[in-house]
């Protein structure tokens, strides 16, 4: 019987299925971080249990960490305790931790792929909704809650009902200045912030195939923003080339064996999906959001729709029927698990080189990992940013969720490459406009929402 990519991976991981209920799904890789794990460890200890398969867990500290002076003790007491607790828990349970100061530290969804821990055909979970990022490698990857984190720690399994399957085909060539971030913002604007709830999404089509792994990760990352359980892309040569040689990638005969298997991971010609959506890449403009959920986005030359939710617009201080282009900006944040990889930084640097930031904006560039940071320094990208007046900070989630000190002040506008523009996401009463790194860079230079296509 023809199978989808999802079904091929799912079927091999089902330990058993409960009659009329969910399946017991085996989990290959489990990522943990300081915010959603402490209660899970406590739960285990309360039951007197040990971690079942500590070698299948990788930990990092990312959500809470400062992005300046990481060599000093964390100033904020609660954050410090949380990060310290992770260190102790990992030590006690023999879990590999890439904590502060470690050369592999970084945002959990950046380091997994970058270290070659994330591989095709795997089931991957993390107590974080953007775990969908790892689906870019042809894995079933999804976010879970803390109780589920505890279940995976205790049994390496989860009870899951099989989701419905959706395929989104993006065919054609992207226009100048249009990036993978614009594709996903366009899709979400198209189908709404709840348009894929209950589904697992496979992205396909020539525009997706032509993306780098970084670009594919950006797309899968935001699957959750339309409600999807996860997103995935069939692995191909781009995927294999990316993984080969990375720290934890298979080697030698093991590589050949895995590769042969990975090549079988695609949706069969006649496999069927519960829903299919076709998108023409040529219709996609550089995108920007104007509201308080990621589905509230328009092309950068568009107008805020007259049907937009008034509560959202009041929060944002914006008006229906007006153009978004030209809107003054106070902060630019280039970072988060959506867009903080080396390719994002390179793209921004190549545009910014020889230009200067506008006086009215503050620009924070927060690399996704220590390795991204080091690579940027090696390539001289740090100097380009310094000359432009951009601050290159140290790796972490930072202003994506503003759990550390990196908060956008109340009422200020921030153009952000992250994934959520919810009320208060970047700080109480902060106003977030989501966009691609290139669009964010254009705003940094002009001090307002600008159309990157006019500059390149």
């Amino acid at each position, binding site marked *: 019987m023809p199978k989808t990519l999802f079904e091929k991976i799912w079927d091999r991981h089902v330990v058993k299925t409960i009659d009329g209920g969910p399946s017991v799904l085996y989990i290959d890789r489990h990522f943990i971080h300081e915010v959603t794990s402490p209660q899970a460890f406590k739960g285990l200890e309360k039951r007197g249990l040990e971690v079942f398969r500590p070698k299948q867990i990788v930990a990092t500290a990312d*959500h*809470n960490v400062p992005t300046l002076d990481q060599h000093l003790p964390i100033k904020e007491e609660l954050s410090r305790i949380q990060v310290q607790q992770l260190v102790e828990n990992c030590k006690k349970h023999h879990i590999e931790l890439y904590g502060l100061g470690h050369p592999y530290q970084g945002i959990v969804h950046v380091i997994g792929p970058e270290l070659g821990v994330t591989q095709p*055909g795997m089931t991957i979970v993390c107590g974080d909704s953007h775990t969908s990022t790892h689906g870019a490698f042809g894995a079933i990857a999804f976010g879970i*809650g803390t109780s589920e984190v505890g*279940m995976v720690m205790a049994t390496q399994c989860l009870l899951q009902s099989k989701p419905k399957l959706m395929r989104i085909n993006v065919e054609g060539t992207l226009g100048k200045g249009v990036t993978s971030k614009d594709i996903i913002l366009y899709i979400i604007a198209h189908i709404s912030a709840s348009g894929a709830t209950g589904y697992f999404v496979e992205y396909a089509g020539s525009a997706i195939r032509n993306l780098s792994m970084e670009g594919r990760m950006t797309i899968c990352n935001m699957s959750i923003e339309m409600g999807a359980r996860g997103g995935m892309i069939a692995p191909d040569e781009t995927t294999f080339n990316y993984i080969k040689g990375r720290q934890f990638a298979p080697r030698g005969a093991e590589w050949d064996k*895995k590769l042969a298997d990975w090549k079988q991971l695609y949706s069969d010609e006649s496999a069927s999906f519960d829903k299919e959506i076709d998108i023409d890449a040529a219709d996609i403009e550089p995108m920007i959001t104007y509201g308080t959920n990621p589905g509230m986005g328009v092309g950068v030359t568009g107008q805020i729709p007259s049907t937009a939710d008034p509560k959202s617009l009041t929060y944002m201080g914006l008006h229906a029927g007006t153009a978004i282009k030209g809107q003054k900006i106070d902060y630019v944040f280039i970072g988060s698990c959506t867009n903080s990889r080396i390719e994002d930084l390179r793209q921004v640097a190549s545009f910014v080189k020889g230009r200067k930031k506008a006086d009215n904006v503050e620009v924070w560039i927060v690399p996704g990992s220590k390795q991204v940071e080091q690579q940027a320094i090696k390539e001289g990208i740090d100097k380009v940013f310094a000359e432009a007046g951009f601050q290159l900070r140290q790796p972490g989630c930072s202003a994506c969720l503003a759990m550390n000190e990196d908060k956008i002040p109340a009422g200020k506008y921030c153009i952000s490459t992250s994934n959520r523009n919810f009320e208060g996401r970047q700080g109480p009463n902060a106003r977030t406009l989501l966009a691609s790194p290139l669009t964010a860079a254009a705003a940094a230079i002009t001090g307002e929402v600008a159309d990157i296509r006019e500059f390149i």
Partner: protein
Amino acid sequence: MSKAIDKISSTAVPVRFENVDTDQVIPARFLKATSREGFGDNLFRDWRYNADGTPKKDFVLNNPVYSGKIMVAGKNFGCGSSREHAAWAIKDAGFDVVVSSFFADIFKNNALNNFLLPVTVSEDFLQSIFKAIDKDPKTKIDVDLEKQSITAGGRSERFEINNYKKTCLLNGYDDIDFLLSIRGEIESFEKKQTIA
């Protein structure tokens, strides 16, 4: 501690917004605790309190007219972040049921794992509950898990829940108990697994 849920009969608190994301339910800056308790105080923090900590009068949780163990919320409740703290905060604030016409997937799982029952009703039924509460804030809502029915303002509707989860909730079982009971099967599965 008996966590089991069966019948719940209570007045309700209406949270009329749609697309309520878990960042609103509990903002990230309150996620720094390392225990599960105490999140209720910060439930809907930024909708409920001004920056100086004084309550916002117009927010429903600050209106003494509304109370009860049931929260009724607009479509697509619990979207966004996977933080289970959202379910903890709602439960900690004294709710046992959330009613909406649509729940985000991760929130729904988190709620179920904390014996907070998510009841999905039709949009029409949801609006009729809001209307009934508008008319009389003391309107009783009856939720019967065994029968999978919800009754409010003279109308009833059946809601769906998978059998396995229903049994867990009725008996106070956790998924983890079940998974631990089949660890032997999990180990044999691991031995058979050749790839990945």
